[in-house]
């Protein structure tokens, strides 16, 4: 019985031959198409690096010789026709940025943490509504927050304050921090929470001593991420912080920040001002990158632990 060839085997043998032949016939064409595809992808990757290289080269190349202690600590000067190169330093803007951003962080962190904890604890339809609102806020144009802050604070008080800028930046920072903190809290294993509760701890105690310590590094990631985004924001604070050419750390006074000084220099009329933009750009990039790298370090740290 088994010595005769099974008719189905013949068919499958012929099928295999047919498939092999067809595949071989088209193989050269398909291989070249594939090479074309992969070549196009490599070109896309190379193109993606061109602007990055150009920006870094220009910012570092034009900005590096500005970076002196004197430039960083003395306030800005005003160029004039008789003295067109008199731009001074950026000390006032550096101080203003420190005040505005520190204020924003001090307001945002407790609010974002409280919100995240509330959204973690409660299951109410408001929770997903707020989450949606937060995600929408992340995508909104930042100039809208500037307009809102101007309308609701500057227009009603007829004054400019550094802390108005802090409040405007909160619109940028709180959503990013809250979404990240909520994700961090939810990433803590349920077993840990349940173990804490089973020991008779109150939910608040479990939150403070179990959930938050376990989620700590991911919460910090969100904070640094939000901060690195807010430092470079120009549009929300441009209209509300006023201007100051004194190096001072007073949230109640007017302030000039790094981005707003850069904006003024960019639309200014002296070449020395536009050249000074590169110095400010380098400082700004260094600050932003520092906090971004810090957030990545915390991500790596939280993945390890």
């Amino acid at each position: 019985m088994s010595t005769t060839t099974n008719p189905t085997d013949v068919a499958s043998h012929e099928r295999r031959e047919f498939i092999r032949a067809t595949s071989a016939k088209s193989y050269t064409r398909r291989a070249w198409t594939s090479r074309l595809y992969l070549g196009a992808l490599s070109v896309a990757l190379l193109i993606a690096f061109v602007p990055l290289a150009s920006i870094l080269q220009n910012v570092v190349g034009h900005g590096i010789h500005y970076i002196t202690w004197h430039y960083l600590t003395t306030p800005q000067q005003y160029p004039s026709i008789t003295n067109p190169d008199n731009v001074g330093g950026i000390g006032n803007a550096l101080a203003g940025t420190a005040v505005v951003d520190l204020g924003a962080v001090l307001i945002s962190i407790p609010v974002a943490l409280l919100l995240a904890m509330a959204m973690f604890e409660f299951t109410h339809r408001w929770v997903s509504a707020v989450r949606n609102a937060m995600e929408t806020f992340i995508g909104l144009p930042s100039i809208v927050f500037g307009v809102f802050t101007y309308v609701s604070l500057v227009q009603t008080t007829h004054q400019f304050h550094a802390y108005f800028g802090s409040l405007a930046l909160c619109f940028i920072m709180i959503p990013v921090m809250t979404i990240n903190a909520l994700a961090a809290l939810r990433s803590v294993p349920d077993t840990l929470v349940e173990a804490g509760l089973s020991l008779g701890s109150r939910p608040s105690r479990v939150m403070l001593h179990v959930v938050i310590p376990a989620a700590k590094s991911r919460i910090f990631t969100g904070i640094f991420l939000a901060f690195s985004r807010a430092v470079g924001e120009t549009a929300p604070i441009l209209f509300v912080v006023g201007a100051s050419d004194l190096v001072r750390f007073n949230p109640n006074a007017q302030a000039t920040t790094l981005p707003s000084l850069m904006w003024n220099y960019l639309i200014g009329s002296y070449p020395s001002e536009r050249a000074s933009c590169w110095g400010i750009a380098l400082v700004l990039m260094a600050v932003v990158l520092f906090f971004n790298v810090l957030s990545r370090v915390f991500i790596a740290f939280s993945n390890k632990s």
Partner: protein
Amino acid sequence: MSAITLVGLVVFYFLFVLAKNSIPGWSLAGWRIFYATGWNFGGGNYGALPLILGTLTTTFFALCLAVPVGVGAALAIVFLIPRRLQLAVSSLIELLAVVPSIVYGVWGALVMASLLGNHVEPWIQNVVHGSWPFNGAPTGYGLTLGAIVLAVMIMPIVTAISRDVIVAVPKELTEGALSLGATRGQVIRRVILPSCKTGIVGAVTLATGRALGETIALATVLGGVTQASPLPDRAFATGSTLAAEIALDFGAITGKAGNVLYALALILLVIVGVVTYFARSIIRRNQKQFS
């Protein structure tokens, strides 16, 4: 619970304040704000059609530039770069996402503008003999430069999200196709791209939202709405966008004119709000697909 209610109230208050303050602006500008040309804030011409069109065209052409490059770069990172280097390469590209927008503004106005105006645009005009859409004086500043700067800003968003979606495609699909004799190009074209479609569309919509609202990077590279260029009808036209014009005109507010800018902010908010809403629902649908 009360904290959450508070945020809800803040959101409603936010919309309420913007809407309320824009009312005098609507009555000052009238319906002209939607169809009249020649926006001139100081001169009292509130025809915002060139701003609306400028917003839409710069965003559209930025997407045309950024999406193929961004998705291509994401595919290249996943399929061509050794696994050990993938994180480093994608982090480098995501570096572009954290560059402050004012730095893009400086780069665009001080570097790219002279490059385009002195070399690239005259060269293109020579090649096509100045026929439409490449007619008119090449100034460097304008909607072309705006689209390029925007493209550079949104490309890392497209790359980062596309990469996440591509990595999430089940290994079995790729391996199945390869074991049937498909080439890598066929796998990308027939397996990866179709199964990533909704995710990539989500990334693009998110990038669109970012591009529509970009303010500071564009304000100094677009050249402004002028008599010579009342509408963005050619490649080298100067112009402006809704967001950029709000920033540029805010210093010159007198009387009720400021409320017209709040009306612009509201128009922008509506456009962006609609786009982000769709982006989020698309991304969420895609996440469900693979989890």
